[in-house]
């Protein structure tokens, strides 16, 4: 089962992320059609019914397909045509349109997100697309003005002049950075959580089924904790090896599909990555060991895992921000805050040059916190806690670290 999880979990979790990153970055997948078509043939064009009680639509733009709209005298006729599937949808423009602005579109099995591909979509046409343009054209009688109202400063027509141009970034290298920025937080999330949550569960389960009583006869609690952490580090190392090897294979395959010669990890990335990973793992493992020692039952220990996941969440959620603005205050905070630093700093290191002071402060803070947490976990991981089934209490957390087994 361990091996199934090791191989299957990352594939299932990363595949959608990689898919979306590749779709967003527009990487050339060696001529693979990504599903978006530029032109829609005339036969495939939808036909849209039009019931114009306001008498507004007189002129049709020249660049619209000739049979896009089919006029109906009243709603009943349009509805009947929609029910017979002769039209995709129909637009009802009420007589008081100018005063109210209301337009009602009737559709069958309507999908909002189909807007960008299907010209029949109402929301797309309403904002900047077809319907708004058509109405503006007929209200003003000026095609250029209607086009300008639709998009007054089109991004595609704006000639850009950069005063202080940043260093030229290769398109594929940036796309690769995008993939890395999405994948790295997930990788760290799993490395840090999977291994350390095994620790929490094993401590809590051994405590509950009283194996711990037997173990404590021949072991000191701190030896037990360090042994468990060490053993699970090896498990995580094996998992990491499989994932890292897989990652290298994917990258190797990726280099066939795209030119990633412009993308390189910053110097020392591997060394920093290992340091952050090792300290991060030790930090999470010691927190989990302490939680396992304090939890009266395995059930309660499982609930606590949810709390420990929270500090890792922002890096997952703001992966775009890491890419767009790797030096923004929030990203900087996340990469210095010890509980998010392992995943956040390594993600930053993978995609940008990070000033040395930030790396060292992040690492220093992490090392200090890890040291404190290991000491603290050692104090919680003592016989009186391991052999008790007293529920969690703030008082125990506040005072528990003061006493320890000598």
């Amino acid at each position, binding site marked *: 089962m361990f091996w199934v999880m090791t191989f299957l979990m990352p594939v299932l979790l990363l595949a959608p992320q990689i898919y979306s990153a590749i779709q967003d970055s527009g990487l050339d997948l060696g001529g693979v059609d990504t599903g978006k078509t530029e032109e829609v043939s005339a036969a495939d064009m939808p036909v849209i019914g039009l019931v114009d009680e306001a008498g507004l639509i007189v002129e049709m733009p020249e660049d619209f397909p000739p049979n896009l709209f089919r006029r109906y005298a009243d709603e009943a006729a349009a509805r009947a045509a929609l029910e017979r599937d002769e039209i995709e949808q129909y637009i009802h423009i009420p007589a008081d349109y*100018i005063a109210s*602005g209301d337009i009602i579109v009737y559709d069958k099995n309507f999908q909002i997100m189909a807007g960008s591909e299907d010209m029949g979509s109402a929301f797309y046409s*309403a*904002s900047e697309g077809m319907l708004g343009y058509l109405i*503006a054209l007929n209200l003003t009688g000026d095609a250029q003005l209607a086009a300008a109202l639709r998009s007054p400063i089109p991004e595609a027509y704006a*000639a850009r002049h950069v005063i202080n141009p940043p260093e030229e970034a290769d398109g594929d290298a940036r796309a690769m950075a995008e993939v890395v920025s999405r994948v790295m937080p997930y990788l760290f999330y799993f490395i840090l959580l999977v291994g350390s949550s095994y620790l929490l569960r094993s401590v809590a389960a051994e405590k509950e*089924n009283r194996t711990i009583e037997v173990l404590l006869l021949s072991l000191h609690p701190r030896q037990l904790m360090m042994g468990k952490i060490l053993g699970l580090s090896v498990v995580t190392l094996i998992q990491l090896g499989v994932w890292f090897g897989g990652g290298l294979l994917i990258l190797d395959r990726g280099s066939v599909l795209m030119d990633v010669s412009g993308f390189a990890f910053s110097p020392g990335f591997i060394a920093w990555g290992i340091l952050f990973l090792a300290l991060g793992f030790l930090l999470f493992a010691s927190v989990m060991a302490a939680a396992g020692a304090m939890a009266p039952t395995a059930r309660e220990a499982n609930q606590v895992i*949810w709390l420990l996941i929270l500090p890792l969440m922002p890096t997952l959620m703001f992966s775009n*921000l890491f890419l767009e603005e790797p030096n923004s205050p929030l990203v900087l905070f996340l990469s210095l805050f010890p509980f998010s630093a392992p995943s956040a700093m390594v993600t930053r290191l993978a995609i940008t040059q990070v000033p040395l002071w930030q790396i060292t402060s992040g690492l220093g803070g992490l090392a200090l916190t890890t040291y404190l947490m290991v000491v603290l976990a050692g104090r919680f991981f003592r016989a009186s806690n391991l052999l008790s089934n007293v529920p969690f209490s703030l008082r125990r957390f506040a005072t528990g670290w003061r006493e320890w087994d000598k």
Partner: protein
Amino acid sequence: MRNLWLIARHEYRATVFRRAFILVTLAIPLGLLAISALAILAETSSQNRLPVGYVDRAGVLDLSRKSLASMTTGVDIRAFPDEETALAALESEEIQAFFVLPADYPDALQTDLYYLEEPPSTDVWRDFSSFVRANLVARYPQGMQMRLLEGPDVTVHDIVSKREFSQRDIVNIILPFVASLFFFIATMSASGYMLQAVAAEKENRTMELMITSVTPGQLIGGKTVGLLAAALTQLAIYVVAAVIGLMIASSRIEALQQLTVPWTYLAVMGLFFFPSYALIAALMVAIGSAVTKIQEAQQISGLLNLLFVLPMLLLVVILRNPGHPVSVFLSLFPTTAFLTISLRWGLGTVPLWQIGVGWISLVATTLFMVWAAARIFRAGMLRYGQPLRLKAAVAVLRRG
């Protein structure tokens, strides 16, 4: 029956009246709130607040019409007589960027944009476009101006599902996503408790004692009902927190005032939630009774949970195209139907046949699984130290 309620009450109390349960139940919404606050902070802190300039060679823009434009960022707009002055302002960082409108604007829409390092954000660009629009419609009567600026207000009526979609009630589109997330957390945590309840009691042999005074049906039924009540308690706390949050926020945020209670959505989700929960519970009972160690049970259940979480992992595909064959397949597949239909609800009409087929396949699988779990439970319950292998489990099911 009395025994069933006794067990249910015990399971409920053992799960809910724990500090960790209360802590986690409160921490998850608070944590999500903190993360959302961080997102807003990130958005605002990274925004460039410097004004945007323009050089208008066509003579169509007038700064006094700024008030007519609907601008959201609060970034000011400044006029410059020529490019040199604007460039000097840009270089001294008085402005973040400036646009140059050609002499034949709006007949030609080709503009020039000058900036230092980063172009203006999409929001700032949208604000400037809104300002230009307000100038372009200035020559029309006021009623017409408003119509041209605001554009049509579109409402879509779906004649099949009788549902209504409108640009105004964007909140009703987002709501199913948030609801799906909470449903997901509540169901997954309940499944974890269920597994724990069975596997741990088997491992520490409490089950052998229990079975002397209650029937297997009462034992499992009681655990399921008790943990369902715990999951519903968690959901109720989330719903109450969300309603209070929305009530406070709706006084400040206009879009939230359009929020209506989506009764149809809640009814459909209710229809799916209970069989989905029963399916997870049955699966967990089967795993918990078949294995010998709780750790092993957790590993297998982690893999099976993936079958329920798949829509969350494939969220990108569902969002981009709710009618995609993958989305349709996930809507019909028993373990994923609940979450997929919930996610698709806000994005458009989910065809009735898909809801029907999805529900039937879910209920059929659940009934089968409950039947199978009861048999596996009977066979595995007293096999202390001996796992029930797949082959033996199939044989147990065949024997009926």
